[in-house]
């Protein structure tokens, strides 16, 4: 049973994220069955599902890092992975990777400049300060702990301009202060009109979203708002549609 999305933000001509009949197969093993959905500009969405449900696959296809086996994904009307799509989409992966010969500050400069940001220094200092990383700016992020790496990846994701933010399991490994800082950054991005899609089980974030998309075994099993449903149960259960009545999607 799948509940229809009832968001007040009706999809416009060019949704921020348009997913049409997208599937992914590895050999003869399906990772994602055909999925279609639209996410409107400025929407704040939580993507949930148990391990192996296809969240990361869907997010990576949207970011352009994976090729869909079938279907298409558009970012603001542009094909995912295309130059304009990359310009408007920021992706923070679940496994942070860094150059092993650049400091965190040099990473910030590099990423900012690659994205054409000229006045990056103050923004970088603010971001690192907000995430409690300012003192570590001259260290190599490749040698950081899991949590610090995650914070560094978040800083890199936010130093560049974006309209759409895709984040995969960003709360893993973060301490309480880090989680709070990230929640503030995500809220701030939403306030500035960006579309925010986060794959997570973090209840503190899920409670703040307007829409939840749930996947199970590569299938879309729930797509709807959070009103009148048990969000905690929805996040924890492996069969969200089974616990909550909803319309067929």
């Amino acid at each position, binding site marked *: 049973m799948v509940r229809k999305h009832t968001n007040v933000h009706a999809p416009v001509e060019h949704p921020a994220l348009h997913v049409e009949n997208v599937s992914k197969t590895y050999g003869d093993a399906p990772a994602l069955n055909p999925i279609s959905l639209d996410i409107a500009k400025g929407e704040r969405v939580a993507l949930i599902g148990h391990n192996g449900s296809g969240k990361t696959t869907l997010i990576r296809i949207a970011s352009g890092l994976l090729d869909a086996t079938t279907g298409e994904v558009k970012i603001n009307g542009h094909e995912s992975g295309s130059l304009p799509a990359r310009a408007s989409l920021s992706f923070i992966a679940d496994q942070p990777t860094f150059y092993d010969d650049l400091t965190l500050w040099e990473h910030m400069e590099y990423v900012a400049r690659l*994205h054409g940001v000229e006045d990056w220094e103050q923004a970088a200092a603010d971001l690192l300060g907000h995430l409690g990383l300012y003192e570590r700016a001259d260290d190599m992020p490749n040698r950081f702990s899991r949590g610090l790496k995650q914070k560094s990846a978040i800083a890199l994701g936010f130093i560049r301009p974006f309209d759409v933010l895709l984040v995969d399991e960003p709360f893993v490994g973060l301490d309480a202060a880090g989680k709070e800082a990230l929640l503030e950054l995500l809220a701030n991005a939403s306030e500035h009109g960006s579309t925010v899609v986060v794959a997570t089980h973090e209840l503190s974030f899920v409670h703040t979203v307007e829409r939840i998309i749930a996947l199970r075994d590569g299938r879309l099993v729930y797509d709807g708002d959070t009103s009148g449903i048990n969000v905690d149960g929805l996040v924890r259960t492996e069969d969200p549609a089974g616990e909550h009545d909803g319309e067929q999607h």
Partner: protein
Amino acid sequence: MTSPSLGVDALRAMRNQRRRHRVADMEWFEALYKVYIAAFLGGSAILFLSGLSTDTPLTTQQMTNLLAHAPHAVGLIAAVVVFIGLRSGANGGPIAVEEPEVRHVLLAPLNHAAVLRHPAIQRLRTFAFAGAIAGGTANQLLGRRVPNAPSLVVFAMWGAIAGALLGMLFIIAALIVHGLGFARWMATALATVLAGWQVIVTFNDSHIAGPFDTIGSISLWWSRHSYIDIVGVVAILVLAIFAIALAGRLSLEALSRRSSLVSQMKFAVTLQDIRTVVLLRRQLSQEHMRVKPWVKVPKALRKDVVIGRGFRSMAHFPLRRVIRMKLLTMTGAAALVAAWRGTTPAVVVAGLMFFIVGLDAVEPLSQEVDQPDRTDALPHDRGLLMVKHLAVPALFMFPFLLAGVFVAYVAEPHTSTLMYSVLLGIPALLGGVAGAAINAVKGAPDPAGGATQGLAMPPEVAGMTTMVRAVWPPAVAVIASLPVLATRHGFETGIDMLGNTLRAAGGVVILLILVGGWVRQRDAIHVWFRNIQKAGSTPISKVESN
């Protein structure tokens, strides 16, 4: 308008800065040591090859044959290189950039062509250089046997040019297939057509030109100038430009997948960790086990849990792995035929082919070794478990034996070929399995806890030990292919050909039994050896006081 330090310019600036960092951080002594090692190994290889080729001048007839057949033969090597290149491209090759480069640069709004052109050219340059070294070396070795030859430098130069073109072809083929998004089957079909064409013109003594004859022909420019070859060279250079232009169309998924796998694979190669190389190569080429087995393993075969697990593993083998194993077996069989006909070094090729087949065949055993905690938690003797795991791979070799017999019979269509190919094929294939089994089992944890034992050894001893550990598994496979030489000797001398074959095959069977015994008793042998070492290092006074 983008300022000079933004976008692609920022990329260039950062690449330059990183290069300067690397140069500044370089340990010059270590770099010189690497150069020394490379020069030593390269020189040794050249000396070894020089030793293989005699200095006896070629006869007039041999010279005529050389000039007539070299273009086809070198073209055949080029066809194999292109075959591999096309397959590599279909699997996401040939470029491997750093993982952060994919995440931070290729996801930035930069033209991918501007980002990837540089690594593509680098790759092309590296392969052209390696090809030039190999071609130059091979041609100068040939030059020593040509009567009234021009300077060896001339030989080396034309060989280097041919070799460089050959190396470039690999990258060109891979880039074009990847850039144009050819499906794997399309790339394989194209590769098969090109290779098949070259094989036909090479072995049928045809006057029709093969697709890669140009390269072989250029290597002969020390003798005669065939100006039509220039067209071939120009075509390759144009294709190179086209291939580089396609760099911007490479799949981000493939680059992302390869970025981490290739660096891991390089590391595994430096450690001579063949199992890891095999696993990473499978991931690189996206070779996944079948979710649905080919057949359901009957209950009778699952009576013994270990044997049943082996059959179940085989039932999940992907089709391409089975086809690859068949092709490798057939190549090995062809090499044995070549050895039978007089090319003795071909037994090494045969042994290595069967060893690679064995690496795939012993998958159930390798999986067991990959999970040492699980294996050690079982209430069974580990050695017995490992030996049992050899039964199914050995049986699994039977259909491959038939493929080998078929090749031998096609090459030597006599009734006796069937008998001799079975007599030689069984030990050869089982030798491949035995070599692969040694390779797998030596990766298992040392029950005597001797993982750090090598650290106390002098570098010379540790180096030799590492070398022996790396060479021993394929050496067993090569030894198992040697009986063909005994058969040939019997044929050449006209004395007891069957007896010679059986005696040699019997020797290999004894070797295989010893390998099985080693797998069974490896843990006990290690414990015994450590105890001996401990006893030897115990102070005498202490022993006396006890």
